[in-house]
Structures are given as C-alpha cells and as structure tokens.
C-alpha cells in the first residue's frame, strides 16, 4: 500500500521545458527494432562485398596495374566507394523505413493518440521525430563508412590516399576527409528524412510512406539524369549528393558541397514545416 500512497500524493512538480528522455526513448526504439538491425546489417554488408570483390579482381588481374594499385593503396577508398553506391538507393531506403515508422507507424499502432494525450505537443513530437531521423541518417552513413574503412584497412592497409587532384594525403588527413564525407552524406539523407516525415503525416500505413519516399528518391535520380531537364537539376535533392568526391580534392573544392548543403537545408526546413502544417490541425482518429 505504501507505493499506492506515494502515487496518490496530491501534487506533482510542474513540467520541465525540455527533456531528452523522449528523444532517447525514440532512438532506443529505432536501434532496438529487429528490422532496423537487419537493415543496418545489409548496409554494412555492401562495403565488405565491395572490398572483397576489388581484392579478388586485383589478384586475378595478375598484371599488377598501377592505377588499381594506387587506389587500393589506402583502405579508406572502400568507404568512399560504398557510400557512392549506397547513396543511390540503400541509404534512402533505410531512412524511408525509419520515416514510415515515425508518424504513420505510430498512427497505425494507435500509439500516436497515447503520445499526444501524455501530452506531447505536436510540434515537440515532430522535433523529436525529426531529430531521431537525423540520428538514424548519421548512424547509417557512419556504419557504412566505418565498416568500409575497417575492411579496407584490413585488406589494403593504411597507405597515403591519392586525391582526385593527384596529390597524396597522409592517412590521418585522409581520415579527417572521410569524417567530412560522412557528415555531408548524412546531411543529404537527413534532408530526405524530412520529406519522409512529411509523407509519414499523410498516411496511417508506414509501408505506404516508405514506398512513397523511395519512389520520390528514384524519381529524383532519374530526373537528375535527364540532360534536357538541366534547369531542374539544381532543385533536386540528390543533385549534389555525390559531390562529396570534391572533399577528396586537394584542397577541397567547396562550391558544390555548399550548394548541396543549402539544397539539403531547404528541403529539411520546407518539408518539416509541411509536416507540421499537416499534423498540427489533423484529427487523430487512428
């Protein structure tokens, strides 16, 4: 009975203004979900496959080609190659799954109505949900880069990295560049996450939100590849995603990077606001 007595004490301290508890709970939910762990394994598998393929083909090439040798002289190359491939579809698909869960998933389970009656203000919910998507983006990209670097170093060692400008970067500086690449790619995926968050407020079916965001990504890539639409390209979210290669020049070439970041920021702000406009006045009947 003592617990019940304590429970029934008549006063409760007034609420705090900010707390990281919900965000931590959200990240725990994402990280703890089996499906997400599997997705992360898939993301991590690609650099491994890539590295082994390069290693094997290098060996069977037999003639000792200088170019492949110089590329494979630094294991960090595997991270960059893997990111180039995964930014196309795998990472967008991963963020699409998380975004589907974010609002549509909670609506589908019915947990959205219980979160809102706790109460969690709708604005706060969207801030926390988007923060967790940004975390997810960073986490996914980091896993690809770290696994790529690990397998790359294991197979190809830590020699100097030949930049796209032809000069050589020592391993330490090259690692610093890789961190920049990870942050840049994460920004792109996180911006896509804002689009996903908005789509997620439109439906109660998480899978529908996931598919819609995946289609959005693929369409963006297709449009980006049509030369006749070059006026549109600067507005496409994916247009500068692969510009991270510019971070590997000596010195880094910032123009495209900055342009990419501003497009990312634009998408993030506009679509977060759209999500807010949609959710703020919505009747929660799920």
């Amino acid at each position, binding site marked *: 009975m003592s617990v019940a007595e304590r429970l029934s004490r008549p006063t409760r301290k007034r609420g705090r203004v900010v707390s990281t508890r919900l965000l931590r709970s959200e990240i725990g939910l994402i990280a703890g*979900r089996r499906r997400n762990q599997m997705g992360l394994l898939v993301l991590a598998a690609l650099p491994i496959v890539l590295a082994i393929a390069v290693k094997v083909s290098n060996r069977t090439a037999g003639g000792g080609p200088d170019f492949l040798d110089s590329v494979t002289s630094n294991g960090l190359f595997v991270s960059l190659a893997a990111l180039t491939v995964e930014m196309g579809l795998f990472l967008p698909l991963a963020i699409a799954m998380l975004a589907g869960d974010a609002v549509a998933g909670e609506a589908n*389970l019915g947990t959205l109505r219980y979160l809102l009656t*706790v*109460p969690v*203000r709708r604005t706060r919910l969207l801030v926390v949900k988007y923060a967790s998507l940004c975390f997810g983006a960073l986490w996914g990209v980091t896993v690809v880069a770290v696994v790529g670097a690990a397998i790359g170093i294991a197979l190809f060692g830590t020699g100097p990295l030949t930049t796209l400008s032809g000069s050589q970067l020592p391993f330490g500086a090259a690692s610093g560049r890789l961190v920049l690449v990870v942050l840049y790619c994460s920004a792109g995926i996180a911006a896509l996450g804002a689009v996903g968050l908005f789509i997620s407020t439109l439906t109660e079916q998480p899978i529908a939100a996931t598919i819609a965001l995946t289609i959005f990504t693929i369409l963006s890539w297709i449009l980006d590849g049509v030369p006749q639409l070059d006026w549109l390209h600067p507005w496409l979210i994916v247009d500068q995603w692969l510009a991270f290669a510019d971070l590997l020049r000596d010195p880094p070439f910032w123009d495209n990077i900055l342009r990419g970041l501003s497009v990312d920021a634009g998408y993030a702000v506009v679509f977060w606001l759209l999500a807010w406009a949609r959710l703020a006045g919505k*009747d929660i009947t799920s």
Partner: protein
Amino acid sequence: MTLPATRAPEISTEDRPPSAVDLAIETVGLTKRFGGRAAVDGLQLEVPRGSVYGFLGPNGSGKTTTIRMLLGLVEPTSGTRSLLGCRVPSESATVLPRVGALVEGPAFHPYLSGRRNLARLDAADLWSDPRTASRRIDAALDRVGLLAAATKHYRAYSLGMRQRLAIAGTVLAHRDLLVLDEPTNGLDPQGTREVRHLVESLAHDGATVFISSHLLSEVEQICTHLGVMSDGRLVAQGPTQELRSRGERTVRVTTPQPTEAAEVLRGLGVSGVEVGAGEVHGTPGATEPEVIVAALVHADVRVRGFAVMTPSLEDLFVDLTGEGFDVSG
C-alpha cells in the same frame, strides 16, 4: 415511457453562471461532424469534480468521438470543452499531465515489453520525474496485476493483458481526472472486478473518473453520475439516484382479496390498477407506499406481500436509447 430528448441537457445551462459549479469536465455545444453526419451533436457534459461518471450509449453513439475531443485529439466542428477548469486545446499542456486516458482500446509497440512500453509513455511526459520512473512503473503494473508479465513482449499479451497495460498507463502518475473508454473491454470477471476496485480507490483518493461503456451492469454499481448518449446526443444526465427515480415506480400487492385491494388503491388515486390472480398492480404516482399499506390494513384487506418496484437502469437505458439492435449509421 420515453423521456423528452432535450430534457437533461437543459437542466442547468440557462440559469448557471459559467464556472459556479466545480466541474471536472464541461462541454458547451460540443459538436463533431464527419462529412455531413453529426457523430456528436450539441453536447453539454457536466461532470462534477469527485464524481464517478458513467458515460453510456450504444455502439456508434459518439462516446469515443467525445473522448477524443475532450483530449484534444479531434477538433470539434463547434463548441468548447474544458477539463479541470482548463480549456482544451489551448491549455492542454498544463492539464493533460493530470489526466489519465484510455481511448478506444490499448495501443502499444508490439516488440517492446509491457514495462518498456510504460517507460516510453513516462519518458514522453515532461512532468514526470525520471528518478521515480521505475518505481512508478512497477507500482502501476502491480496495480493491474501485470507485474509477473512485465518483461513479456506486448505482442505476446492476451487481449485482457493488453487492456490491463493500458489501464496501468493511466495511473503512471498522480491524476486528478481519469477518462476511461470502455476499460473493462476484454477483461475476465476478476479483471472487471479489479477495475471496479481500482476506480473506487482512485475516486477515494479524490480523482474524478469518467468511464464510457455500453455495459450498464458494470458501471451502475460504481457510478455516482450517469450520462446517456444516443445517436450523438446526450439524452439524460444527472446523479444516478435521480435518474433511477425518474422511471415511475409501481406497487404490487399480493393478496387473496384482489378486488377489494384494487378498490382501496383506486380510492387512493393509484393509476393503472390491474387485477391479477392473487395480485394487484398499480402506479402510485405521488401516493407514498406507507399510505397505501395503512389504507389496505385499515380496509381489512389481507395483505400477504407488498412491493415497490423501481424500473432498473437497464429499462431506463433501453427507453432512452431505443430497443433497436441496428447501429444508426
């Protein structure tokens, strides 16, 4: 017997200054239309503080929609609502932490355990103290008898266990008001009784409890007040005793001299006197039972039995909401 549909809501809205009565829930003209059809129509709910209020109505009569509006999940087409004196939704942030809510059944993350689901709800609450979280969660689980199943995945819970977990969620912290939408849905008889005890203990601690249900039997024992919905409208509202006494009483006299007894009853102004085999029935109206008994004895009628029968709440409920089985759509 049918009560006029507008009688109850009109009782006190006219001559009452807006906040003179201390109400835990108050709605004025609360209306929600889905498409063209009103799911809730001009609701004037008045739930006094400290009451246990049974919110009754058949399927589809608008109970859940009303609760969603009270909690700010659904925006009404027109009308206002306040909880514990605070307007919803403008003051939701300060009032909802004091309100525990169960809306249309339990909903949790299937791949989290019961305890972790409650921890998530607690984490979402800016008012709750993280240092006491695990103690409060265990106390809540204990209160609904789920402590032994606390680490099981929610997916593996039975219907009744899920319902219990949702109830546990409503008592995670101190609440001044509980809004429970069909809390005993899916519970076994023990579970139903425990919910009743829980409601009683919460009410004893001073909380107001608002329970929606379509099962009269489960609420009539614990509710001090009742509101009856039918097709989106509140057709009756008031203290349980008052509603109960609304139905007309009848008397039954068991006697070997029914004809004489009937004479006496008619003489007292009892209406609708019917003579049966060894029995007489009648509707006494304003005539008090003791007067009838005295008159019968005085007239030397041999009385073997005398009973005053008030209609059950169930009769009243059916009278108010109609006999039909079909949901009005």
